[in-house]
């Protein structure tokens, strides 16, 4: 535990240093507004991929509904900031809580389903959320919700991402996290060990959905208008690609996956049709050369250089 706290501290110092450098590049106008926006999107995508990894990677449940939870967080928070003038952070957290609560309600029945069935159920769920929003006049329906305050700065996105990483990393290293991983490894054995599998699956799903909601809120406040087409199942696929690319069961991997997908899609902004081809190629190459994902189950903190700081937790 002690050594874990130490890694947390090192990561925090590293994170703040990175922030200062990037913020310097932004203030010094070395990064233009296009790359500034992409940096913010990258932070948001990291929140989404890491939270999806908690469900799909660590707990082994195949969810395809992440964009739906993101939409809930987005709409709840923009209504609260725009119509009710709530403080930004509180609105974001409320959006996360709303998405988490829905995740909990839906998780209870659907997580009894296995494999493909769960994927289809969550895919359908994401679409139901989107179509429902499309039909709610109050939030602008298909036309979208307008006049959103432009609250999301790089600072907000970066530090909420850091908080997400911190919370999810500690969760997966906790007893709860070990229970989730045991479920992924062998659900029947986990049950035979006395692990309440439904409880932990719902817990992972709820937490994952909650963070997707926060990310949705951050995303929405980057723009003056959002509409339901931003939250289609294609978006859920994007986050899934990040997770699979980086490695199911590695937070470092999810960050790398978010990085790759965000910058490939930013770099190809003028040729969007190439994007899917590149993703497909990346995934095919991955299947051939590294089916466990870039990082597999490994974290950056597992590398030798870190064990020096940790006082040799692993031999």
């Amino acid at each position, binding site marked *: 535990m002690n050594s874990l706290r130490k890694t947390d501290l090192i990561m925090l110092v590293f994170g703040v240093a990175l922030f200062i450098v990037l913020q310097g590049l932004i203030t010094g106008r070395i990064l233009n507004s296009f790359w500034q926006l992409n940096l913010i999107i990258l932070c948001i995508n990291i929140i989404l991929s890491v939270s999806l990894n908690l469900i799909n990677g660590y707990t082994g449940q195949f969810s395809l509904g992440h964009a739906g939870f993101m939409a809930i967080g987005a709409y709840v928070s923009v209504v609260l900031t725009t119509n009710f003038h709530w403080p930004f952070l509180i609105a974001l957290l409320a959006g996360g809580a709303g998405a988490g609560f829905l995740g909990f309600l839906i998780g209870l029945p659907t997580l009894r389903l296995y494999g493909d069935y769960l994927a289809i159920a969550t895919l359908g769920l994401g679409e139901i959320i989107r179509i429902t929003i499309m039909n709610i006049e109050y939030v602008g329906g298909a036309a979208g919700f307008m006049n959103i305050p432009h609250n999301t700065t790089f600072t907000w996105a970066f530090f909420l991402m850091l908080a997400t990483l911190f919370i999810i990393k500690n969760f997966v290293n906790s007893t709860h996290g070990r229970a989730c991983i045991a479920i992924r490894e062998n659900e029947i054995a986990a049950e035979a*060990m006395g692990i309440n599998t439904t409880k932990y699956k719902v817990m992972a799903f709820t937490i994952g959905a909650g963070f997707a909601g926060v990310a949705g809120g951050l995303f929405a406040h980057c723009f003056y208008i959002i509409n339901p087409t931003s939250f289609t199942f294609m978006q859920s696929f994007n986050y899934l690609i990040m997770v699979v690319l980086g490695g199911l069961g590695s937070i470092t991997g999810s960050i790398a996956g978010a990085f790759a997908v965000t910058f490939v899609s930013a770099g190809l902004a003028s040729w969007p049709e190439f994007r899917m081809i590149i993703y497909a190629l990346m995934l095919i190459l991955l299947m051939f050369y590294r089916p466990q994902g870039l990082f597999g189950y490994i974290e950056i903190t597992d590398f030798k250089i870190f064990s020096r700081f940790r006082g040799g937790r692993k*031999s």
Partner: protein
Amino acid sequence: MGTMLKIDNINVYYGAIHAIKGISLEVGEGEIVTLIGANGAGKSTTLRTISGLLKPKSGTITFEGKEIAGLAAQDIVKAGISQVPEGRRIFANMTVMENLDLGAFIRKDKEGVQKDLKNVFERFPRLEERKNQEAGTLSGGEQQMLAMGRALMSRPRLLLLDEPSMGLAPLLIREIFSIIADINKTGTTVLLVEQNANMALSIASRAYVLETGRITLSGDAEKLAASEDVRKAYLGG
């Protein structure tokens, strides 16, 4: 010797398939009781029902005087029953140590867990040598030992073993069975499911013979081993 586990007339279904048709059996405190029978007789189904992975449609299961049929699996582990599932089902991508830790998942008494870990390592020295090894890379026999050690980590009073001899060489089977006998001697009651009837009958005090969901014979293990019917059907003549 009091009765520890008493199963009374349970019926278990998989959808429309009636797998267990009114089974009753008893396990006394301190005994090794074995349940033998051919493929598909319903041996694993019986164990899974006791450990709460399946729910009986009717009938009662009493453990130490308490009704446990229909309880959730985690509550049955807490009550003191632990199962070594068929095919071992170890956590292949985790280390031996992590597997054993998960065996003690329901326990809060850290010192007791440490003590039991020491006991498991004493019983299975090979597990201690390999405690940082990934469990999936262990040999079949070592995996069986790990599955048993993991089950013991919850400090059960009743241990359910589902075909511990499966896929092991004869020498290893003998080693595993002597360990089972030893676990029993140190105070754990054992309900053992086996296809290897010879070995099972040799260490058990009593036995039940299961045939397509029904108990057809039961009694003293030695007597069953000598009986003509059992010899023909399960002991190869």
